[in-house]
């Protein structure tokens, strides 16, 4: 996980034993410490080798990102791929999210796996509201992200019209690998190290639709604010 590499390497580089002799020496040191024979500088070095200092918030987020309980909630055909994600072949247990909870009170991730009809939207919203903080939502597939092929009177054109969404996963339906990839993106977001947008990554600032449309086009106030925030974050 990212936090392990980033924080632990920076604060306390762990020295791995390189030879059997060094390994044996470390073992002896450990047994001495347990017997209470280790003193002075040796004891101090021993402790410094093994203790990691970090912020409580970082540890909490790291723990949260690796123990996500998704909600048992399928909306349509994407739910089949979501179920496959738990199977032995794809095995979401590698990332600690295999325990699907049937109650929103116990879940902290809502995966919208399918089209949300106008009639279903209040139900989804209520389930989301019943989940306890901290909570996240993934919009899986084209239908819940934008309405997809259902451009009609019965389907909500994008689930973020009625609830906040953290990650949108494209696909119709996305393969379980794609869902796991999106889930990993969510984990990075939870530990406070989100992936940058492609405009930051490829240094393509200024190619936005509103920036190319001539002198009259400009983003809305909210969009400009969010954009500036993202740019500050990427620069920091």
């Amino acid at each position, binding site marked *: 996980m990212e936090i392990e590499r980033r924080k632990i390497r920076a604060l306390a580089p762990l020295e791995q034993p390189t030879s059997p002799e060094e390994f044996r020496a470390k073992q002896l040191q450990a047994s001495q410490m347990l017997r209470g024979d280790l003193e002075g500088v040796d004891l101090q070095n021993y402790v410094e080798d093994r203790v990691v200092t970090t912020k409580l918030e970082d540890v909490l987020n790291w723990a949260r990102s690796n123990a996500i309980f998704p909600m048992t909630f399928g909306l349509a055909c994407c739910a089949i791929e979501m179920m496959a994600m738990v199977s032995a072949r794809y095995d979401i247990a590698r990332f600690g999210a295999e325990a699907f909870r049937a109650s929103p009170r116990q879940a902290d991730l809502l995966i919208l796996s399918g089209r949300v009809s106008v009639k279903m939207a209040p139900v989804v919203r209520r389930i989301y509201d019943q989940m306890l903080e901290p909570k996240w939502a993934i919009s899986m597939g084209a239908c819940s992200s934008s309405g997809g092929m*259902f*451009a*009609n*009177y019965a389907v909500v054109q994008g689930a973020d019209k009625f609830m906040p969404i953290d990650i949108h996963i494209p696909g119709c339906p996305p393969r379980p690998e794609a869902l796991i990839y999106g889930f990993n993106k969510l984990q990075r977001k939870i530990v406070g190290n989100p992936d940058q947008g492609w405009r930051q990554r490829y240094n393509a600032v200024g190619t936005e*639709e*509103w920036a190319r449309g001539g002198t009259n*086009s400009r983003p809305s106030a909210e969009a400009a604010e969010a954009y500036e925030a993202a740019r500050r974050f990427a620069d920091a």
Partner: protein
Amino acid sequence: MPDAPGLELIRGEIETEDPGAVLETSFDRDQPALIVDSTRILAVLTWLHDTPGQEYTFLSSLHAADYLPAEPRFAVHYELMNRNRVERIRVKALLADPEAGRPGSELGQGALPELDSCVELFPTANFQEREAYDFFGIVFKGHPGLTRILLAEDYVGWPQRRDFPVGGEPVTFTYNEEGAPASEHLSTSGAD
């Protein structure tokens, strides 16, 4: 299945009981159908249900249709069946739109076409008439509880009518981004 002469016999018998109720018959693709004056639909259905020798006691489907350029515009189809002889007959009631030529009726404004309910005769028609009302805005007079059944209770409009807007949102692609509604939306909501 009544054949074409059998269908004409049925029409003749109804004609003697209730002159003018049957407007037309059709035997398209070997399927017999009576096209009926919508104000007398209940009389025709009752006759087909009760008359010895007919006894179409099973309503296998009731649905509405919108033939928009045609006039009258709406039709309610009754698919009747005699389960002993395994014979089917279709009854179509044609309905004119009282708001014809005036825009907005598909969005829930103005008067609705009306028709007698056949729930007393066929209890199964209860939900199916509600569905026809839900999607086409056809009012079944005498229905015990004519409310929306599939769409949300507060839905406005009759979405299966042919003049109902398709819905959805315009999507900006490369070929239509110039002057597409999406970019207008971005530019007009600026902080002016």
